[in-house]
């Protein structure tokens, strides 16, 4: 049996120990910090802002669609609403959501490091992100964008009269922030692990975040150059993608989806990372099939790069390319299913505790499964032709991104909140809002599957009256979902000040981040830990964790 050799300094501190929050104070100490924990919090604040901003647009759209002919906005305003909703949610919430907040906060601690490999680069990445965000918001304030978040050509390069270039520049800038974060994480995982922490002793969180970082580094530059080409075509009116000038709009779709499909895995792999931490903790069992789960993260990252053409089945790509991409898309289901089975098997015969993070994690597994299965429908060439650009697609990817990523994000925030803030959140309220989110989510998006299958197209400001009942249900669900998101925001802020003080390891679990005080000191550990145990080895740490 492995022995636990984590040495804590014995001398009791004379005064309350300083932590990363109290070590320095004042606005400047935050704006010029290089501490990964503080930068993580800076990201939390920024992406929360963007989340509610983007969510507000979604709510406006749902309200508008209460009546078949729509009643709040003109068609052009509606186009801008869904575009800005997509742009903000994808690039300013979903992509940075888990890696840049929770990842930034816990990744160095999980591997027993003092900080990321390049702390200054990490801070720079936040400033670049904010610059990109502000540029995009400027585009919005000046009058918005109406191309859809996908910027399809030739509309975006030649016909749209909205602020395409400004928004594209904003996204391009934010892309460099992603690249820097990915680069930082990869270098950190390779070179900064604590003594004894071999690859197969790493928590699954690290594997999945590492896989995410690979995608960030390999895919984002292609987005940057594609957006740059749109900008150049639009400014100089020279032929790159516009068929009227000799270009090929399908090439734009190839290049855009070469980034944007892997980007889906940038969003969902970190969610899987969080869930892979929560489920063993609240089942009191090591994760089932550690290596299979670890390798499936890598497999998803790699296969995720080979499937982008399934966004273009009706766009005129060759039948052979479509077949290849369809087949490869089915392949991605294999590692995804491995993960779902292994999470389930981890819970099987464990002592499952339904604390808030676990509720979110179970919700994630359920919704991700529905989202993943409907993804297989869409990967099938025949069905895809029928449901392309309908609400079926909308429902499918919201099950992955909102049902998957946002659920896991909230689960992770609750799970690590005691470590981040040193305070406990109100458990009953938290459980209630987790339930609200789950119900509200399903009520919002399940009707959209049916709507899509019946043929309601996406991105329209009006619809035939026979679709009204389902649309009203969806809007009702969206309102409930909105409440489910606002309540945690309120009680988490409340708990930051008034919550019960948290112990160092409130969940009695195994990760290195729990073996340091809550909140942690500036350099995470009083002494660099030496790791001699496997991840999630509850048996070996039974006594230390006071388990049965």
């Amino acid at each position, binding site marked *: 049996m492995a022995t636990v050799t984590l040495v804590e300094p014995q001398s009791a501190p004379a005064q309350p120990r300083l932590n990363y929050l109290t070590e320095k104070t004042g606005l400047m100490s935050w704006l010029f910090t290089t501490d990964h924990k503080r930068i993580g919090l800076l990201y939390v604040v920024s992406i929360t802002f963007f989340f509610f901003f983007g969510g507000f647009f979604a709510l406006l759209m749902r309200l508008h669609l209460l009546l078949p002919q729509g009643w709040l906005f003109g068609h052009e305003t509606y186009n801008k609403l869904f575009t800005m909703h997509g742009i903000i949610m994808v690039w300013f919430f979903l992509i940075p959501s888990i890696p840049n907040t929770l990842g930034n906060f816990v990744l160095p601690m999980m591997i027993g490091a003092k900080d990321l490999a390049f702390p200054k680069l990490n801070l720079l990445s936040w400033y670049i992100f904010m610059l990109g965000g502000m540029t995009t918001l400027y585009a919005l304030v000046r009058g918005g964008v109406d191309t859809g978040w996908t910027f399809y050509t030739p509309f975006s390069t030649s016909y749209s009269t909205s602020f395409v270039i400004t928004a594209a520049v904003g996204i391009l800038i934010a892309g460099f922030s992603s690249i820097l974060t990915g680069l930082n994480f990869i270098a950190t995982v*390779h070179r900064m692990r604590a003594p004894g922490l071999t690859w197969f002793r790493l928590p699954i969180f690290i594997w999945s975040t590492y896989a995410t970082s690979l995608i960030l580094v390999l895919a984002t530059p292609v987005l940057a150059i594609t957006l740059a080409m749109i900008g150049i075509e639009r400014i100089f009116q020279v032929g790159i993608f516009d068929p009227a000038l000799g270009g090929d709009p399908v090439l734009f779709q190839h290049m855009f989806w070469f980034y944007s499909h892997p980007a889906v895995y940038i969003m969902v792999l970190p969610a899987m990372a969080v869930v892979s931490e929560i489920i063993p903790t609240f089942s009191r069992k090591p994760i089932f099939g550690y290596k299979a789960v670890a390798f499936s993260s890598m497999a998803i990252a790699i296969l995720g790069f080979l499937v982008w053409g399934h966004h273009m089945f009706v766009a005129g790509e*060759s039948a*052979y*390319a479509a077949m290849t991409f369809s087949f490869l898309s089915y392949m991605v289901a294999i590692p995804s299913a491995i993960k779902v089975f292994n999470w389930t098997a981890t819970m099987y015969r464990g002592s499952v505790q339904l604390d808030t993070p676990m509720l979110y994690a179970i919700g994630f597994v359920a919704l991700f499964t529905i989202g993943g299965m409907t993804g297989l429908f869409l990967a099938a060439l025949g069905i895809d032709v029928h449901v392309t650009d309908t609400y079926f697609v909308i429902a499918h990817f919201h099950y992955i991104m909102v049902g998957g990523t946002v659920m896991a994000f909230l689960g992770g925030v609750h799970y690590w909140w005691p470590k981040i803030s040193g305070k406990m959140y109100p458990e009953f309220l938290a459980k209630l809002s987790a339930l609200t989110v789950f119900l509200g989510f399903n009520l919002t998006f399940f009707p959209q599957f049916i709507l899509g299958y019946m043929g309601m197209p996406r991105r329209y400001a009006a619809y035939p009256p026979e679709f009204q009942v389902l649309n009203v249900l969806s809007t009702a669900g969206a309102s409930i979902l909105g409440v489910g998101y606002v309540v945690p925001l309120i009680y988490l802020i409340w708990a930051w000040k008034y919550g019960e003080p948290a112990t160092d390891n409130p969940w009695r679990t195994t990760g290195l981040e729990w073996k340091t005080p809550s909140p942690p000191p500036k350099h995470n550990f009083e002494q660099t830990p030496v790791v001699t145990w496997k991840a999630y080895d509850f048996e070996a740490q039974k006594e230390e964790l006071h388990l049965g």
Partner: protein
Amino acid sequence: MSQSSVSVKTYAFTLIALLALTLLTSLLGLVDLGKFSFIAGVAIAAVKASLIACFFMHALYETKLIRVIMAGGVIWFLVMISLTLGDYLTRGWMPYPGK
């Protein structure tokens, strides 16, 4: 700290090889090889790039990790270009318009 340093002689040979290959590419360019002038040009460029990477950038003397990173970058670029070109090359293979 610094890995086994590469000798000046190796650098000099690399320089000569690169200049010779540049001359070769230029001369090839003056001959009409049809389609192949593009392919030959890119092939020679690939050889030159490997020389630069191996000797000037010390790839031959680096750790395995660095070599994996480098190979990964090249492979990913090849994935992008081959799957994209794969679409264009197989257009019109089926006896239906637009397929």
